[in-house]
């Protein structure tokens, strides 16, 4: 599986007046590409803190005690603000719990929604172009170095590849834009016809005029060629009839002639967006080499075939062959460098066992970083997280050690004073009901171990790579790299104009349930109600087109219908854009709809983790039981099982299982020792002593067992819903 984001052993605390609050205590999560990970828990369980750590927006009094958040070759906990800017909102976007405060009161809604799209689009295109060029240049050099072909040949091939790849994507982009406009137009016309039939008042002239305007301005020759005449005829007829159309107060119907004409126009438009899409990558090359041929009038299928053959014979096979050689050469070259780097790392590692000095440590870190960065294969598309984060990781670990090594005299003085006070009180025989916060809150040994952990981790990674080197399939990797180029090229040509952005925004506003979006597009935030504003914020987060979307209770304040609508929208976008989502909520019903994987959090720890069906159909942790049985479903009649008490005070985290106090199944050991994660199946894990082989066998509570049985019965009966 493709992991897009990894959280490893994350620990976060908050320094407050009354002591250190341990908000997140050693959690690890994996987010897979295109999947939804739901984090479930009560307020104060640390779920929002985790998500904020990912975005690097923790409050000022927070202390990240340890752990890593790996994303795209970066450790998000350790990169500087400059780098974080490129990730936050751009690659990882967030829908906040309280969106009411995140709109700008003096900017119109429409501008706020489109702002990000337009700004980002420009930057994205520039970045994609840079990546395309730099990787292609590297590939060219590798081709020459590997002696796959001569320098002139490589230059020529790469040049051709560049030109036709971009050209093909330009074709495709224009086609896609037209296709989308076409679909919209058809939807507008159908809506118009329907409303007219129901005798609803509407601005027919404006709507039809808008459609005619758009259909008259198609840019892709591939798209309109076949239908040019038909479209022109149908448009002309509609235009003529439209000038005679005069609705009255009670009669808003169109009249037979106009209705038929519009239907005719609609059928042409529908045929247009239902036509088969040509394979532009092949055609791009064909068009480049045969500039004088009229490719538009040819049948799509035949053209596809012809172009494929032409491309393979004249370019692609040869290009792929060279690419494979180049990739292999480059990988071998860097394998040798990796071996050297491992040697360097091993040499330096021993130093960090004994006492270390700041100057020496930093010098050694620099040596290692140099060796590691030199060993990264730039032609590898999948970024090896550990090597990329080594630089920031080691420097951060070293800095952290020496920062905490220095004693803070103020803190020390406070500590001495308070201890003296406690001693005094104790000497007088009084009971002391508060603890002295230690002067140094961080364990230095642990910090030192962190340094060697970073080094060891990379050594392991590299020796693993060395072992598996023979198994690398370069035939797959050459396809991968071509796909990479295609992807970047499509980003280079993906130009969004202001009017396109506006259309998108209006569509999205409609999708999130805002009526009359065209009118509301030009309104200010204060003209919207609370629920409406929340929808706007969701729309803004979605237009940013991120890779990872973090949803922090996005629908908690909305009612069911809108909630369902917005969840559907998020799910659609997930499919369409291959989004990965972290979904934070306390509502298990919502989770069942959204999640592929679920992590149940309690008091800063993950207590149960598994796929959605694992957690819902086979819950193991008493806290999961309690959560499930405290919410009524449609067939619940018995008294709800509420969880007694409140979550523990995290200034003094409990020694044993944090849930023990509220758990009626708690055993003696739950109060004494932290339960480890027990594996139940490959995907399912839970941290409770009940899963220990020596523990008494406990049945799942009756209320949950009954419900699961009921659900299964219902699902077997063809998935009938809500009776």
């Amino acid at each position, binding site marked *: 599986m493709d992991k897009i984001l990894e959280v490893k052993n994350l620990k976060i605390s908050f320094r407050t007046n009354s002591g250190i609050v341990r908000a997140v205590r050693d959690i690890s999560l994996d987010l897979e590409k295109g999947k939804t990970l739901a984090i479930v828990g009560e*307020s104060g369980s640390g779920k929002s803190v985790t998500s904020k750590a990912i975005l690097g927006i923790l409050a000022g009094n927070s202390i990240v005690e340890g752990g890593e958040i790996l994303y795209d070759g970066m450790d998000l906990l350790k990169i500087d603000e400059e780098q974080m800017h490129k990730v936050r909102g751009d690659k990882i976007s967030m829908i906040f719990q309280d969106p009411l405060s995140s709109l700008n009161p003096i900017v119109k809604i429409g501008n706020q929604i489109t702002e990000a799209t337009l700004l980002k689009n420009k930057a994205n295109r520039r970045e994609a172009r840079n990546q395309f060029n730099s990787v292609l240049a590297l590939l060219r050099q590798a081709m020459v170095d590997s002696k796959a072909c001569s320098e002139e040949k490589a230059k020529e091939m790469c040049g051709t590849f560049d030109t036709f790849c971009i050209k093909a994507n330009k074709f495709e982009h224009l086609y896609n834009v037209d296709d989308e406009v076409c679909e919209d137009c058809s939807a507008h016309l159908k809506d118009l016809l329907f409303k007219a039939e129901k005798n609803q008042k509407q601005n027919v002239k404006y709507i039809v005029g808008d459609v005619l305007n758009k259909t008259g301005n198609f840019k892709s020759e591939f798209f309109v060629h076949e239908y040019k005449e038909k479209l022109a005829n149908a448009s002309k007829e509609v235009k003529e009839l439209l000038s005679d159309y005069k609705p009255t107060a009670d009669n808003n119907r169109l009249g037979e002639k106009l209705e038929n004409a519009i239907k005719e126009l609609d059928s042409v438009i529908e045929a247009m967006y239902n036509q088969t899409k040509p394979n532009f990558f092949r055609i791009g090359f064909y068009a480049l080499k045969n500039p004088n041929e009229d490719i538009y009038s040819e049948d799509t299928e035949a053209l596809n075939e012809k172009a494929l053959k032409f491309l393979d014979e004249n370019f692609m096979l040869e290009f792929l062959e060279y690419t494979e050689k180049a990739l292999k050469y480059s990988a071998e070259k860097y394998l040798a460098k990796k071996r050297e780097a491992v040697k360097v790392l091993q040499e330096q590692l021993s130093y960090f066992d004994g006492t270390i000095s700041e100057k020496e440590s930093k010098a050694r870190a620099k040596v290692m970083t140099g060796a590691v960065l030199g060993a990264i294969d730039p032609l590898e598309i999948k970024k090896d997280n550990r090597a990329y984060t080594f630089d920031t990781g080691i420097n951060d670990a070293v800095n952290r050690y020496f920062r905490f090594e220095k004693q803070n005299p103020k803190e020390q003085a406070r500590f001495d004073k308070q201890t003296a006070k406690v001693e005094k009180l104790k000497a007088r025989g009084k009971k002391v009901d508060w603890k002295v916060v230690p002067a140094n809150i961080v364990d230095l040994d642990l910090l030192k171990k962190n340094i060697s952990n970073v080094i060891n981790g990379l050594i392991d990674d590299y020796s693993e790579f060395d072992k598996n080197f023979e198994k690398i399939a370069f035939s797959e990797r050459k396809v991968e790299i071509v796909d990479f180029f295609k992807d970047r090229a499509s980003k280079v040509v993906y130009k969004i104009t202001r009017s396109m952005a506006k259309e998108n925004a209006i569509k999205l506003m409609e999708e999130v349930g805002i009526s009359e979006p065209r009118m509301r597009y030009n309104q200010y935030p204060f003209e919207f109600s609370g629920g409406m504003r929340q929808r706007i914020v969701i729309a803004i987060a979605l237009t940013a087109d991120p890779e990872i979307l973090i949803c922090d209770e996005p629908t908690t304040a909305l*009612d069911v219908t809108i909630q369902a*609508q917005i969840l559907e929208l998020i799910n659609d976008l997930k499919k369409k854009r291959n989004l990965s989502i972290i979904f934070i909520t306390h509502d298990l019903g919502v989770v069942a*709809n959204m999640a592929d994987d679920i992590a149940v959090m309690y008091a800063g720890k993950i207590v149960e983790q598994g796929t959605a069906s694992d957690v819902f*159909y086979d819950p193991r942790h008493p806290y999961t039981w309690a959560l499930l049985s405290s919410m009524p479903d449609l067939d*619940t009649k018995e008294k709800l099982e509420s969880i007694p008490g409140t979550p523990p005070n995290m200034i003094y985290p409990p020694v044993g299982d944090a849930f023990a106090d509220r758990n009626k199944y708690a055993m003696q050991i739950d109060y004494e020792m932290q339960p480890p994660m027990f594996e139940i199946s490959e995907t399912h894990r839970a941290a409770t002593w009940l899963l220990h082989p020596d523990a008494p066998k406990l049945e799942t509570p009756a209320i949950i067992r009954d419900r699961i049985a009921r659900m299964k019965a219902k699902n077997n009966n063809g998935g009938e819903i*809500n009776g």
Partner: protein
Amino acid sequence: MAEVKHGEELLRVEHLCQYFGRTKAVDDVSFSIYKGEVFGLVGESGCGKTTTGRSIIKIYDITSGNIFLEGKRVAAGVMSYKKAIAEAKQKLKTAATAEEKAALKKEIADNREEIKKALHVQKKEKVVDKVQMIFQDPIASLDPRMTVREIIAEGLIINGEKDKKVIDEKVFEALEKVGLVREHAGRYPHEFSGGQRQRIGIARSVIMHPEMIIADEPVSALDVSIQAQVINLLNDLRKEYGITIMFIAHDLSVVKYFSDRIGVMYYGKLVELASSDELFAHPLHPYTKSLLSAIPLPDPDTEKNRKRIVYDKLKDHDYSKQGPTMREIVPGHFVYCNDEEAERYKKICAE
């Protein structure tokens, strides 16, 4: 099929209209609430369910219609009378015979009399000692500068209770009723967790020994585990003290669990009213169906295959020939529909 057996009628709402300028927040809504039952009111945000609750405890002066509490008119609107007068005046201009004129003049006079009465009711009648409200947000609805004792006792003091001992006793009683302890009386709201704060809100509402509590989304702002605590508490209060509850919420699973009868509102109209089992087993109005299809359930397999029904006013109804009104399809099950739809619904129910 649900049996139709009700206790004594406690509250009757007749043709309630509440307009804010041109916005018709509540438009011609009628229903009754019986003693000891839980009446659920659901609908999407902005459909007027909270406004209905607020109109009943007279936070707003209603635009038109009547509200009766234990048979006594406690709120009345004047718009319908004003309209009648305007119509009569219009007719008066074209009236031919002297008899007709006299009749119309009498009508106008009668309506003027009604307006006077209604205004009197609006000013003088009080419901706060009989009907109390629990608010959605337990943080915003408690004054941070007042102790719990002051918050809970405020209603008593306003109603003229001066004896400190009596007040304290009643406050402690109310606290114990909602599962808090006496020691909590001296603290401030911020020292409590969300669930406990909502309990304080409930204690404040039960101290006047109300006949009825209007609970306006009392659990939406709470965590799941705490939600169950509050729902169980409300259930206990109702069983022990026979308090009637009007439960306004958008979480349908909770409403289903908690209510005896449910009213569904859509854009200021009550579109369906039935006992909760009946409503969930045989939803008739298309909006109710769409609402029920949107309920999230803790069941991944069903959820992944769920098809949400989308309600479209234009597609689902044809009101061009005859407008809809509230009709009883089977005993106790009312739907907002016209003749043709009523026939259809009756057939569905007969099956």
